[in-house]
């Protein structure tokens, strides 16, 4: 007889089966995920989700004899009153005669559709499927690799800053043991003994021997140094190419009085989606919040969404601020830069040229992607009215036509956020034509 403990075996033995199953129900699961993403509070978006799958795609048909036709025989336990030849009224359809029938139908019900739970990973995978960071390929070829250092053993020469102390002392210790360097304790004990004898009787006969011994020990310990140059070891580093796995996301938002809470909410949802997306792709993602009225300021998240400001609107101020921060902290060589700007579209008309120039010359060349999101009222554009083009929209439109890095969309309702986001990042080649 053998007893085997399987508990420590890696779990997830049926993971491969699950993947095959998910592939099979991909369409359904994806639809469920989209719906969940729309209804769900966006902060909880990356939780696990339960998905109900209709039986259609995952049916396992078998030849079965239909329980509702022909002569059925039921053998049942627990007879109380019946005798042979009795007749029983036929129970209404749906809960037919015997328990056999009931069980059969129950089984079919559960065949019709069933629920299962997607894990967080699976949810996000489906959620972000088909999405691609724009221009990632181009950047990857150009600058994605930088040099980085990593530890690679030891060497016998180097700068003092790289001295590998432990290794050096280990070498020194083994050398001292091998060469029998007198220990400090032994030396001290010998000295103490000499002092004691000298104090007691300076003419003691053994004193001469002891002094000679002490002298010998001292010279030996001087001759064999505590640390010899031969012991020294330095940490060795070697350079290796490191892909840039870091991104920074600039959130630009107009916070002037004309921006309602609803608009800010829309903007926030968009930022969160972008953040989830970036976090999935990059090891390290930083966020910079820049809010602006007629002057721009870098703030923390709470202030960004929370506080209200009054004042006019000068979009170029935010762009200038962004340019400054990029120059200071985020070298485009090392960072993948994404920007998302949300605004209701107001701007001082005299600012248009400045903004265009800034975008063209400084901002867009540094960015992987610049998304402009124009947020509108919940009611949206009223039917029948010619769409009103805002100042900012008219400013950005010509730029976006010539430079695909800039993409622009208009959003009125919360439910549009995710479709718009998908549209912006959908995996496809070619230029984006901006359309509201």
């Amino acid at each position: 007889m053998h007893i085997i403990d399987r508990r420590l075996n890696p779990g997830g033995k049926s993971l491969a089966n699950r993947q095959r199953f998910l592939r099979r129900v991909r369409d359904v699961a994806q639809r469920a995920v989209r719906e969940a993403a729309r209804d769900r509070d966006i902060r909880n978006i990356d939780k696990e989700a339960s998905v109900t799958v209709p039986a259609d795609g995952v049916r396992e048909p078998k030849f079965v004899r239909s329980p509702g036709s022909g002569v059925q025989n039921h053998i049942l336990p627990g007879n109380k009153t019946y005798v042979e030849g009795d007749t029983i009224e036929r129970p209404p359809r749906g809960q037919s005669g015997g328990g056999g029938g009931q069980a059969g139908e129950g089984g079919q019900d559960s065949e019709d559709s069933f629920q299962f739970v997607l894990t967080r990973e699976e949810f996000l995978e489906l959620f972000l499927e088909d999405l691609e960071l724009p221009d990632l390929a181009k950047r990857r070829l150009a600058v994605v690799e930088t040099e980085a250092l990593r530890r690679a053993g030891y060497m016998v020469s180097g700068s003092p800053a790289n001295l590998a102390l432990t290794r050096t002392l280990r070498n020194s210790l083994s050398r001292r043991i091998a060469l029998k360097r007198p220990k400090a304790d032994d030396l001290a004990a010998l000295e103490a003994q000499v002092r004691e004898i000298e104090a007691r009787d300076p003419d003691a006969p053994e004193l001469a021997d002891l002094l000679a011994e002490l002298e010998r020990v001292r010279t030996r310990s001087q001759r064999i140094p505590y640390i010899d140059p031969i012991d020294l070891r330095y940490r060795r580093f070697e350079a290796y190419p490191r892909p840039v796995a870091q991104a920074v996301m600039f959130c630009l938002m107009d916070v002037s009085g004309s921006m309602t809470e609803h608009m800010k909410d829309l903007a926030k949802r968009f930022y969160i989606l972008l953040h989830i997306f970036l976090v999935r792709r990059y090891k390290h993602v930083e966020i910079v919040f820049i809010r602006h009225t007629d002057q721009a300021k870098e703030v923390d998240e709470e202030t960004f969404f929370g506080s209200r400001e009054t004042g006019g609107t000068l979009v170029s101020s935010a762009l200038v601020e962004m340019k400054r921060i990029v120059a200071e902290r985020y070298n485009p060589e090392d960072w993948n830069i994404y920007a998302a700007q949300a605004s209701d579209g107001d701007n001082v008309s005299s600012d248009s040229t400045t903004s265009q120039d800034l975008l063209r010359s400084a901002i867009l060349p540094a960015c992987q992607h610049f998304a402009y999101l124009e947020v509108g009222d919940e009611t949206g554009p009223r039917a029948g009215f010619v769409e009103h083009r805002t100042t900012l929209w008219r400013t950005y439109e010509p730029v976006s036509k010539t430079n695909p890095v800039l993409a622009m969309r208009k959003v009125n309702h919360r439910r549009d956020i995710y479709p718009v986001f998908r549209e912006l990042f959908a995996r496809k080649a070619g230029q984006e034509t901006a359309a509201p």
Partner: protein
Amino acid sequence: MSSAPSGTTRLASPALIRTGEPLFTGNDWDFDTIRRIHDACEAVAGPELGLSWYPNQIEIITAEQMLDAYASIGMPLFYKHWSFGKHFAQHEAGYRRGLMGLAYEIVINSNPCISYIMEENTATMQTLVIAHAAFGHNHFFKNNYLFRQWTDAEGILDYLDFAKRYISRCEERYGHGAVEAVLDAAHALMNQGVHRYPRKKRPDLSSEQRRERERKEHQERMYNDLWRTLPAKAKTDKPDLSVERRRALLELPQENILYFLEKAAPRLRPWQREILRIVRHVAQYFYPQRQTKVMNEGCATYSHYRIMTRLSETGRISEAAYLEFLQSHTNVIRQPTYEDRHYGGHNPYAIGFAMMTDIARICTEPTEEDRAWFPDIAGSGDAMGVLRDVWENYRDESFIAQFLSPRLMRQLRLFHVVDDPDQPELRVEAIHDERGYRRLRRAFARQYDVAWLDPDIEVIDVDLEGDRKLILHHRVLNRVLLQKDEAHRVLQHLADLWGYDVVLKEVDPATGTVLKEHTASARPTFF
């Protein structure tokens, strides 16, 4: 009649009484406890019950691993397919919401016999499941004729390993989609992929050569030159295309549809045939289990009951542990009556255990009625001998037809209701009384005959030189037709595999009239 009935549970040989130290105290256990429990059970199962078993391999697993095992029909290794993922998701959802408890153990018909036991079980439960699975089921697997005839306990794990590798190699080579399509189709026909009777042995080369030689010798001996002078009939060079000849060549009619497709489907590629073969072998391996549900569980339940009782009598398990055992035992063998809210058909554990106990009673304390009904075994005194013989040589259907006693029918208060759509009301056909016993028992046994439960579908004919349309018949029993939607889906799979049109006729065997016809045309799934 022997005066010392060795089969009853109350009597013990003096040596066994109160000799043992308790195997464990409390609920906790470790590997040493498991070993002691196994040895103690063995000491009862061997000398006292006379069981024989494959060597045991007891594996301790977690709840998650149990779910994993559920997903691959309990086998320790299995090929990959989405349907197992689906079952896993279903089980997991049920388990998470607390709708479903997990089994205490899973036991595999292999040599060595693998029993999975859950780490959550208490020491008492571990004793119970070891007695139940590692001895009860194990004995049944090793000795029952169906398992001996149809399954290869030695080779199953190796075969599954081969199947798993083969299918994953196919996936690499031909793509997931292509393999999945074949598996889907094969799974749909799995129940039609078993041989119900042992086939005629195919002659091998040496015996063929021997027969050829004998034939030659015979011809030489009987040679008479006179025959040469007879005028010969004009040779017809037309091949023999008679229906009879054709069907004989294809071994028709053939009820094993997967086998037929594997051998005769014109357009399948070798690897696709091999996959059909794998699915067919797996189906064949599980075929005995479907036919022996009641007996298998009855054997295991009766064995664990005997073993646990003996352990309690000899002081190896405490009173508390014995009570804990009795509670789960009675839960397992509960049979709700038909009006009960929890009624979900017959509980194989309940029927099996009741019948085994009843047989033991008939052997040792028969009534006049038992003597009349079971003259062979009534009062034989050797309950275990009779039971071992039963476990070896019967399947559910024959077992019930033979051994369900009137007393047990009365006890279960069984009755037989017929639901005939032509009649306005249901009719009670037979109850547990003198007039009804035999009819009731026969009808009950039918419920366990897979040949009556599964639709009887056969490949009847195909003209390989004509339009290659495959013709199948469903011999309709009791006017119960196939469920239409399901039948169409399966037929579609069948047509895909066959590569040409398929027609399934539902035929009334008495009159030969066709009640219904289903057709399907091949889609370009595989070719």
